[in-house]
């Protein structure tokens, strides 16, 4: 790996830290990234499916997942995990990510992970080829490509510090606050940075100075490096060794902060947990001296660091090693943005012509387009172009359920309302309002229970027992008069179509074995039309490649009912128009058809 991140890098963000994520997306928009740098968010306790963020002046939705595994499954190419879990859980989150695999980088922000756990985490990641940035860090940045969370601060500061486009310096620091400061100094005194990492302030961090600087040595965009070390530890000596061994050849400018510590014998902790000199060699002064001895550019003091950077940069420029950068075009994020109240993901009326899931209506409407109602349903309900066998099936279903005579509760209601002089829409909705668990609900129920039985590999006998235990008659089984010998032709038609055109009919096959058992008990316990529709819908979705979870969600959200509602509305409207045509008077139910059993109310 020569570069930590590219313009295509996408991250999974663990913890829905909306401010930090918005900062990343503002950065993405500013540098004109094609795709947002955050592909998904892991929010174990959230019930939401997505979070809205601004994308420049617009808004986008970033999906939420309950677990890293789910997020990674949905976005396998997202190879950076931004672990914003607390110090209590950060270890587990990283270990899980390494276990799942496919992550190149894990950034850990928590400060104060138990040292033994931090060591185990860093070691496991290293063994598995995962670069850990942190713990206790603000992150890393590849200017013009990818930025982690809050590093660089506000978008204004990022542009001011030239962190929006690639410069020529490789920057490594321990402190996150000083990382920003150094970026600013490098922007003022040179041409900005090409890659930067704040390695983190804890005693045990995953990637140390040397890991990052050896990578920067190989990164052709890095022409020189700036290292801001600290009193304590011996990490800076590894850089010295690497220079001696010829592993680092690019110019290095370095300074260790914490020279103050020499004035105080003991007891005062200056700086981070990792910063405490246990030996003379670990003091800032000793390290600064040792670094200067191998040819690292070491300023006289921190205050003098900007001059040193300018000196080295101008030298490299004079030699032609760094060249003038053409400043790229940027987008500007609006300062005032209003979050949208409504979201629409199915149709759009903003252009020349309104579209259904991206298709202009004219491309679907007329017969010459070859598209039917099934296509419109697939676009507006499922945001997908279903194949012909599926759209034909949808149309078959709609046609099949369109009406079932005047006596059923919905039609009866519609007729009574129409006779009360109400409009088509009022009459229609009184009919529709009866649709539910008892009327039309068998489609939903059949899909749900048969799928449950099939998913759990219940034998037909087990399934019957299970339903008996639940205390529910099996939805989709049974007809008033029809039997195997005298079959329902609607059912026969649906089955025939499915057998001929569906790639497979696994749930129907299962349902038919159940039917064999039920009809052996009683003749009319056949798979009825509601059951067949519900079951075949599941088979259709399975054949279209939906996951079982997706299908369960269709069922629980009432999608199957929706097919019944659409179809039966045709019939209800027919009954309403029929009433209007016949100009039938107000309906009053005959009193002799009512059992009156009214008692005088007791006083309580």
């Amino acid at each position, binding site marked *: 790996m020569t570069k930590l991140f590219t313009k295509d890098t996408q991250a999974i963000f663990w913890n829905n830290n909306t401010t930090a994520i918005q900062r990343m997306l503002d950065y993405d928009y500013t540098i004109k990234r094609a795709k947002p740098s955050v592909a998904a968010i892991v929010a174990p306790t959230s019930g939401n499916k997505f979070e809205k963020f601004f994308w420049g002046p617009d808004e986008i939705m970033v999906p939420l997942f309950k677990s890293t595994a789910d997020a990674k499954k949905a976005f396998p190419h997202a190879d950076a995990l931004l672990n914003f879990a607390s110090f209590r859980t950060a270890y587990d989150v990283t270990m899980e990510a390494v276990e799942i695999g496919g992550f190149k980088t894990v950034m850990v922000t928590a400060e104060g992970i138990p040292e033994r756990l931090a060591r185990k985490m860093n070691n496991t990641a290293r063994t598995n080829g995962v670069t850990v940035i942190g713990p206790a860090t603000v992150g890393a940045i590849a200017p013009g490509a990818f930025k982690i969370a809050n590093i660089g601060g506000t978008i204004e500061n990022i542009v001011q510090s030239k962190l929006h486009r690639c410069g020529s310096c490789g920057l490594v620091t321990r402190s996150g606050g*000083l990382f920003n400061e150094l970026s600013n100094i490098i922007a003022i005194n040179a041409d900005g940075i090409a890659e930067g990492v704040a390695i983190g302030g804890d005693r045990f961090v995953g990637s140390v100075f040397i890991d990052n600087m050896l990578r920067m040595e190989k990164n052709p965009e890095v022409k020189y490096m700036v290292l801001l070390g600290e009193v304590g530890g011996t990490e800076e000596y590894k850089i010295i060794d690497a220079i001696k061994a010829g592993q680092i050849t690019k110019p290095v400018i370095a300074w260790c902060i914490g020279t103050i510590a020499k004035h105080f014998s003991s007891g005062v902790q200056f700086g981070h947990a990792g910063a405490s000199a246990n030996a003379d060699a670990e003091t800032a002064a000793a390290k600064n001296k040792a670094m200067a001895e191998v040819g690292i550019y070491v300023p006289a003091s921190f*205050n003098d660091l900007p001059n040193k950077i300018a000196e080295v940069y101008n030298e490299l420029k004079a030699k032609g090693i760094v060249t003038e950068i053409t400043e790229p075009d940027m987008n500007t994020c609006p300062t005032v943005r209003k979050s949208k109240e409504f979201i629409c993901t199915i149709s759009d009326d903003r252009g020349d012509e309104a579209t259904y899931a991206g298709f202009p209506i004219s491309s679907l409407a007329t017969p010459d387009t070859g598209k039917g109602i099934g296509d419109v349903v697939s676009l507006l309900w499922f945001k997908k172009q279903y194949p012909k066998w599926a759209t034909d099936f949808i149309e078959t279903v709609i046609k099949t359920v369109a009406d079932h005579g005047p006596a059923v509760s919905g039609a009866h209601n519609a007729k009574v309302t129409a006779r009360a002089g109400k409009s088509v829409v009022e009459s229609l909705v009184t009919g529709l309002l009866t649709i539910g668990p008892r009327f039309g609900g068998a489609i939903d129920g059949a899909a749900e229970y048969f799928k449950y039985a099939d998913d759990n590999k219940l034998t037909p006998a087990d399934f019957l027992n299970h339903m008996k235990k639940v205390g529910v008659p099996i939805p989709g089984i049974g007809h008033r008069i029809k039997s195997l010998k005298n079959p329902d032709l609607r059912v026969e038609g649906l089955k025939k179509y499915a057998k001929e055109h569906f790639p497979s009919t696994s749930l129907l096959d299962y349902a038919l074995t159940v039917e064999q058992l039920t009809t052996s008990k009683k003749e009319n316990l056949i798979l009825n039309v509601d059951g067949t529709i519900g079951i075949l819908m599941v088979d259709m979705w399975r054949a279209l490649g939906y996951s079982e979870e997706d299908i369960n969600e269709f069922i629980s959200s009432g999608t199957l009912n929706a097919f019944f509602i659409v179809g039966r509305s045709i019939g209800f409207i027919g009954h309403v128009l029929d009433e209007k045509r016949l100009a039938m008077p107000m309906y009053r139910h005959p009193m002799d058809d009512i059992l009156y059993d009214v008692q005088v109310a007791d006083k309580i």
Partner: protein
Amino acid sequence: MAQKAIREYDGKALFSKQWGNYFSGFHYGFKSVLVQSGAELLAKAEEHGFEWLKQESLVAKPDMLFGKRGKNDLVLFKDQKPGDVSLAVAAKWIDEKMAHTVTLLSGQHGHLTHFIVEPFTPHSQEQEYYISATCVGEDDVLYMSAEGGMEVEEGWDEKVNEVVIPIDMSDADMEHAVKANIPTDIPAKDRESFTSFAIAFFKFYRDMNFAYLEINPIVMLDNNDMAILDLVARLDDTAGFLMRDTWGDIEYPTAFGMEDQTAEEKAIADADSKSGASLKLTILNPLGRVWTMVAGGGASVVYADTIADFAEATGGSIADLANYGEYSGGPTTSETKFYADTVIDLMTRHKDSKGRDKILIIGGAIANFTDVAKTFTGIIQSFETYADKMKEHNTKIYVRRGGPNYEKGLKDIKEAADRLGLYIKVYGPETHVTDIVRMALEK
């Protein structure tokens, strides 16, 4: 700071509590008491379970984190001859030692307040061993020597065997490595016992989240009876949330000779523990001239570095630097006001001995996410309270800061200081972070 030293007594108590879980087959009596006066020791001897204080001869020594107590002549083990210290003698000795300040060979200086008292354990030099464990670089290291006692530091390389135990080493491999590295000069009769003790010791050190654990000497008496004569331990306090039940309410004393925290330092530490932000304050010299209020851990270090550099270069000294600390991680306005009140109050207590102006550095790097205007509102509120006092001390204020909302923050603080008649210079990210120190001191 992640690693915190604990008292010898608490270390031994932890051993005792966990003994059965790790050291089955060995026996440890844990006859130790921790007292803060002779009277307390005498009272302890009357309690049930502590009859041994009256029955056995005793050893007493301070339990205040520092080592080399023998060389400092701070171990009481003989009155007339070794092993004849009675309860009364021990109590008297403790009171004597507490009566005046003590200066150690290291130069540390202070009052003795805590003593550990234990039975005198007769034994021979041959029964003394050394064992310790800590983390070096990325690995744990177990140190073992056949020679216990304070002399072990001399000739360390020859006397001590070390076993490097990487974090991912299996228990089987660890046990094998320990066995293979048992010092050859451990006598055959103790060899097996010592090996199992060393393995158990390492597991105990590891599972209890010690950062450092040393017994010097550990004495192997007859019948696998172990005496922990001297113990030094540091815990990794970041593991506190995992170890709450196991560690119990363990105390982290201040190092001997370090002044106890001042009331102000304690108040800031207390505010820090209750806040998601980071508030730190160390008073280096209450009479100092240069006071700092710096945002950010790294920035606080470079400001201290730079003040030291310029103070020395401009005829002053390190004594000019009054405090060290930070406020960062997005403190609220009221947290920042409290921090500013504390610093400014301390600053305006004493006039500079040379009659110079007081300097208040309100510094910070370019913040990642802290709202500068919000925190500066807290500082401004503090200015309003202390303006008169600050003027009495001719306070010159130098501000440098960047980050979210910094323009407003800088404008607000400038306006407030002008309105209150305070001397102020205000700079943003275009000025080098520590350059205000040069401006303030280079005159």
